């Protein structure tokens, strides 16, 4: 679904490309450190209506077997999914 995360390399000045640098979707760092709260899905309540998937600004929610699943590598913990869920199947928990 999403591009994979690659090893971060260090570049010297001469190695920095002058034109188009890399292939599209070249990810080297995750965003999970931004979070102070995390969404947790209650699979018993989730019916796979996909509203959280549609409204996630970061696209970290995917639907597997009619249940929502979150990619915690890139979730920033904004909580839009928990607000959008009509069944209250997503709750926000504090990150420890």
């Amino acid at each position, binding site marked *: 679904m*999403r591009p994979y995360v690659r090893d971060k390399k260090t570049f010297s000045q001469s190695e920095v490309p002058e034109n188009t640098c*890399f292939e599209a*979707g070249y990810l*080297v760092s995750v965003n999970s450190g931004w979070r102070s709260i995390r969404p947790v899905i209650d699979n018993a309540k989730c019916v796979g209506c996909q*509203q959280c998937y549609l409204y*996630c*600004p970061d696209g970290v929610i995917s639907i597997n077997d009619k249940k929502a699943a979150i990619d915690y590598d*890139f979730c920033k913990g904004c909580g*839009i999914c928990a607000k959008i869920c009509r069944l209250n199947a997503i709750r926000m928990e504090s990150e420890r």
Partner: protein
Amino acid sequence: MANTADSISREEYFYGHKACAGCGGSLAVRAALKVLGKNAVSVLPAGCMSAVGFNFPQLCFSNNSIISTFAGTASMLTGVEAGLRARGFKDFTAVGFAGDGGTADIGIQALSGAIDRNDNIIYICYDNEAYMNTGIQKSGLTPFGAKTTTTPAGKNIHGNIRPKKNMFEIAAAHDIPYAATASVGYIDDFIAKVRKASQIQGTKYIHVIAPCPTGWGVPVDETVNIAREVVDSGLWYLAEYENGEFKLNRKPKEFTSVADYLKKQGRFRHLSDEDIDIIIKSRDKKWEYIGKNFKFD
């Protein structure tokens, strides 16, 4: 509802970006690219979405994507479209994502030129109602009363003294093949409009309201709700322009409270009752105009 999710690509084309949590603009870009697919070529001027999408070596766009000059989003789209066409490519969409400043102030000349030439491009303006990327300065699309760093709220002047520029009708006045307004709060409507735009030949303009929690002073989880409320309270409207006619897509039976909408946001918290009355009066005037000139069925 479920059909909307099934109708767009499961692939993510705007992923791992460094936008603030709850960013409305990134939601608009993500949704639009999921409609247009991997053959979309996106052009982004200076603005939040280029600042958060291209952090070397992290490239968050999984489709071909380029940063343009601030003023030249539409002219670069023209070039991208002409270049790919000349090289024999057929299955692609040239799409631009510019903010409100990059559209209504700095990029309006290039946009006007592209519409005039009727180039086969889609221009999407994600409107967060100020220059958010550089720290919340007033743009031509900042609404009346909003507090920004260049229109501070003081004792005598309560924020921005000028109303929002009517960019949708400015684009429509060019007799553009297709123009539309949308809101990220009604994502099904936005996705349907991007799809419709992708099937029309000529220049297409979509103006989507994309709340910025940082600049608007709302909690990060309120982005979608506030984007719905701006439509429900009548301060924004969902409409289309096609074949020389305006069409209203959504008519609230009864407007929700404007004061409630304004008071939720830090940028409007200083407004007095008189200021709110001015906003309500201008809303009613706008809807009178919409009632006379827009079709609704």
